[in-house]
């Protein structure tokens, strides 16, 4: 029974939460003030949009593609949310829906013409950024009140970012990992030829996955604006690399449809907390940037240690 609980697969799955726990405990230790409702809220609220973007990236990675444009896309969504959605909600929401459709279209284009997604999305990153500059030439705009009040919600007992992250992880987990439809979507990452042989349309699957990525990208942009209260065209460019790193940190792989939504959310949290951890250390400014790299390396090295310990058992 114990053997079954600690099978390699389960242990592999335990690595991301363990890394997160270690990081969190170190932060609590460095700055006990964070161990409060108020502290956790401040510590984690900016991780919510990152987690959403990471989930978006995960859908793309699941079908063996890579999205280098998600950061630009989230920025564009943030700009649209802070302007059009705020001023003319109907038009704004329509524009966001059109963006999701555009993502599905990208999926179709990539599949039909057999294009490398890296190049297409690299091109799209310029397009999204350009559109964002056109929508909002100078930083500004204002978050719609309903988003602002949602993102600053203060539920009793458990801080909102924790509730939101857990809900996000569970919903996507059930939809992608447990449902019958999600299984087919993941299968397309594992062996697309086999799915085609079984009569599934890879085109439709790709479009679905890209549309889902677009959808979560939109949620990410809206959540971000809810926190920052206004937008600028460069606001989320960093999300591209963060989201890829988050998926990988969460145990996902670049090819083969091996992804984990829970892991991805945890990965995003870990990345967000790594930055905080450092500012609590009060390093010499020269090395603050380098320390961010060092901490990523340490977190990943930790995983290696756990893995080896497991092997030795």
């Amino acid at each position, binding site marked *: 029974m114990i053997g079954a609980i600690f099978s390699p697969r389960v242990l592999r799955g335990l690595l991301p939460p363990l890394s997160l726990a270690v990081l969190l405990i170190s932060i609590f230790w460095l700055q006990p*003030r964070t161990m409060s409702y108020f502290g956790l809220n401040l510590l984690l609220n900016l991780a919510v949009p990152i987690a959403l973007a990471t989930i978006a990236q995960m859908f793309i990675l699941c079908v063996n593609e890579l999205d280098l444009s998600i950061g630009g896309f989230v920025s564009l969504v943030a700009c649209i949310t802070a302007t059009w959605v705020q001023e003319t909600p109907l038009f704004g929401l329509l524009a966001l829906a059109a963006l999701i459709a555009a993502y599905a279209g990208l999926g179709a284009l990539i599949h039909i013409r057999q294009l490398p997604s890296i190049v297409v999305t690299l091109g799209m990153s310029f397009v999204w950024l350009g559109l964002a500059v056109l929508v909002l030439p100078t930083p500004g705009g204002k978050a719609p009140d309903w988003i602002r009040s949602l993102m600053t919600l203060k539920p009793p007992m458990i801080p909102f970012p924790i509730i939101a992250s857990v809900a996000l992880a569970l919903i996507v987990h059930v939809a992608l990992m447990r449902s019958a439809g999600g299984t087919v979507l993941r299968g397309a990452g594992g062996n697309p030829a086999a799915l085609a042989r079984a009569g599934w349309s890879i085109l439709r699957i790709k479009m679905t996955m890209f549309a889902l990525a677009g959808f979560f990208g939109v949620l990410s942009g809206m959540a971000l604006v809810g926190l*920052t209260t206004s937008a600028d065209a*460069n606001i989320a460019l960093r999300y591209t690399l963060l989201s890829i790193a988050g998926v990988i940190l969460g145990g996902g792989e670049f090819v083969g449809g091996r992804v984990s939504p829970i892991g991805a959310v945890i990965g995003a949290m870990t990345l967000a907390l790594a*930055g905080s951890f450092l500012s609590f250390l009060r390093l010499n400014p020269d090395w603050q940037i380098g320390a961010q790299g060092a901490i990523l390396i340490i977190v990943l090295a930790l995983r290696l240690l756990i893995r080896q310990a497991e092997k030795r058992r």
Partner: protein
Amino acid sequence: ADTAGKRIALSNNYAGNSWRQAMLRSWEKVTSAAVADGTVAAADAFTTAENQVTEQAAQIQNLILQGYDAIVINAASPEGLNGAVKEACDAGVTVVSFDGIVTEPCAWRIAVNFKQMGKDEVLYLADKLPDGGNLLEIRGLAGVFVDDEISAGIHEGVAETGKFTIVGSVNGNWAQDVAQKAVAGILPSLPDIVGVVTQGGDGYGAAQAIKAAGRDMPVIVMGNRQDELQWWKEQKDANGYETMSVSIAPGVSTLAFWVAQQVLDGADVPKDLTVPFLRIDQGNLEENLATTEAGGVANVEYSLEDAKTVISGAM
């Protein structure tokens, strides 16, 4: 009130160029003295790894958690940090922004009139080139407000003087090599140009590109970098080349520090302060060059007295 027990933090969004490095060093120099003589208890500097709003917002939230009494911010975006700044104010933290200022009303702002700076460049050129002519504009990073402000000032100046036409505009991202590349690309297709208006950090790159293309050297407005001043000096000595140089002094971080200290001290400080930009002309070139570190930026650091003067001037 006494500020001896107070702790002040600097939240900086970018450290990747010489201006920011000079800014950090000025901070270090002035604040370590202030800590040593017991004016404040601590003055720590924090820099984000990448120039990103989200990262800086998280950083500010962490500084709140660490219990700093004041946070001095050079912001990645005037609006994007308002959420975090509001959190800080709500938690009773004094927020002072400078250079990259924030619009959240609860924060203090030490602003530079970037628009005026752009306009002054054109006014200088109009004075120097009474016949007018074609201008090349080098802009900063698209979508950042400083870029928009300076550019707006330049265009306003061009419209007012009515002598110039901007025949080309490129983004140099405030980086030497990027400016050099962009100018080299557009230059061959341009007619003769009499002047280059810039935003700082890009003048030397433009000069290199123009030299490589074998064109007559137009009047390039410089941005106070030592290599720009050095080049200007060499040209001046060789052929009497004339221009001007203008930028914001990195030492403004120290002014922000003193303003924060004053606010903590209970002084009555208006929310909006303005600092003049640092301008170098043909006459004081040598003098400024001499005081500027090789490879650095022309700088002015502020003392408590200077800060008090700025504050009372704004009353």
